[in-house]
């Protein structure tokens, strides 16, 4: 388990068509890996963190035995894919107008 493996995985994700960037935050909302610029990273980290917390608690409230695994948001400009886990959350931006 090395840094190289981590980089490989992230590279594979980045190489998917239409991917504009990715961001991984820890459960405090602090960005750990990002290839977005600084201000976007800060914004996404803070905003997606609170959204995913909200989403997680919504799912829990409906059914305590259930758990949020993944959600995506389609916007006019791109799709935001979010994979929230206990420790880390991965956020990927993909352009939707890819032909």
């Amino acid at each position, binding site marked *: 388990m090395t840094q190289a493996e981590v980089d490989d995985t992230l590279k594979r994700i980045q190489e998917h068509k*239409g991917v504009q960037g990715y961001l991984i935050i820890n459960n405090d909302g602090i960005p750990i890996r*990002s290839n977005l610029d600084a201000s976007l990273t800060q914004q996404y980290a803070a905003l997606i963190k609170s959204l995913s917390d909200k989403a997680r608690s919504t799912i829990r409230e409906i059914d305590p035995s259930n758990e949020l695994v993944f959600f995506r948001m389609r916007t*006019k400009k791109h799709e935001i*894919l979010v994979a929230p886990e206990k420790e880390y959350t991965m956020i990927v931006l993909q352009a*939707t107008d890819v032909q």
Partner: protein
Amino acid sequence: MPYVVKVTTSIMVVGMSRSNRDEIDSELNRKPVTFTDETLPVISCKEIVQKDPVHSVSASVQTKFEVQLADATCQSIKYKEREVQADIEEKPADDHVEIDISRFNKFLGRVEPIVSYYLDDNLERPNVLRHIKMRYTGDETAQELFTLSYPDILIDKEIQVTSLSWSANSSSIVVGYGSTSHEGLCMHKGAVCSWNIERYKINPNKPDITIETSTCVTTLACHPERPGIVAAGLYNGEILVWDFREQDSLIARILERQDLHRDSVTSLQWIREPKLSKKKFILVSTSQDGKILLWNPLPSKSNLKLTDAYFVAIKGGNSRSVGKPMGVTSVTFNNEDSETFIFGCDSGFLYKGSLNSVSSVQSREEGLADMSIHPKNPVTMAYQSHDSPIYSVRFSPFNRHLFLTSAHDGQLRLYSQLFANFGRCFAPAQGAIFTCRWSPSRPLVLAAGSEHGGTLIYDLEPHEGTPDSLLLSIPVQELPSSDKRSSINALEFNHKTPNILACGDSAGAVMIWKLAERFTAAQNDEIENLRILANSFGDS
């Protein structure tokens, strides 16, 4: 810019001298004088006048200098200084946060498949947006462009806007004025006015063209191809055709009195002559006297000539009323099958008719036999009727089967011409619906003019998660009438610029609205959705 001064000077010198006789009167000559008579010979003097030639000199002078203009602007600016400090982090992600690289790697291993799956999934279905629906940007509110009014005719408080029509080039709105309340004879003066809304300067209180009529104008129709030609139906049954570009604008009227409608004309439409040329336009009129008449409106000698006649008689029911005329209020022709039409009646009955009908009319109604063409019975099919007078019937411009009706009972209904029962019905609870129109650009959008609620705009676009039954219940937009109280009697979309909607109300004002983008830009699957809607009617 150099400025050239040209000076031309003429100097004229005139010299003239004249010889004079000198008289010498000296002291020496003063001595005693002896006078002697003397006769002096007459000496004739020749007067010599010497004339010098006139000298004239012409010279021009040019001064060469440039006009110098200087232009300077000066602005004083006040400066304020503020010091701001922002912490700029060099690195977007914090490498200093302690992470357990193996657990982090496991996390990545878990989420990568699902992220990758959806990233690929998105690419495989770029059309996924079709179902998610792109939402329209910008404002959804309608913008009021003009409120047109003709104060001269509105002195009579009973006068309202009864009808509207856009000219063939869609630049002018033609407005018909009349009253909707009559007890017997019409004592009002009507008018037809026209405003060009594309003019740079438009005076909303002064029409570009005004024509007064002897009685109320009940309906109007502009020629679909020739701008300036307008047909109007009057309360007394007359039909007049004008060409606003002619000096003598009235170009046709009904001269054969026996063919005149015997009651108010309720609707007029120009349709392509379906049988002969298919290019020439004919005029279709409907009336409270139960007749649907076809006219050749542009003949020589300005005589509106009857080309075909249909008569709708009451059937069944009270034996005394059988054969009496059933007032026809609105007619609409099918886009693809130009000989099929749907018409609504004053009684609430709704029928399909055909121009090919040959069945004769069973009626002893006075005057029918005198007409130059014997009227036929047009009815080929009856639809589920409204409970009160139908005001408007309209075929969809995007679907050959769907048509829309509105009636005094406050209901808007959608029918498929294939099925007798209506497919959708909705009642906005805003009183009678005096008029309804399909949007010319969005297949699923329609507008209705209500008695109390202004203009109601409906969008039949299915929304995910909304059951079909709720489909039509709520208008997506309500446009108020000019004084917020009066009813909308007429409304027309502008066909060239479909975001322009004209609404005429009972206060006599015509409001020209500019609708938001969502009411004009069609979704790519909209015609398909309309077709699905039309086909679903048979199942219910």
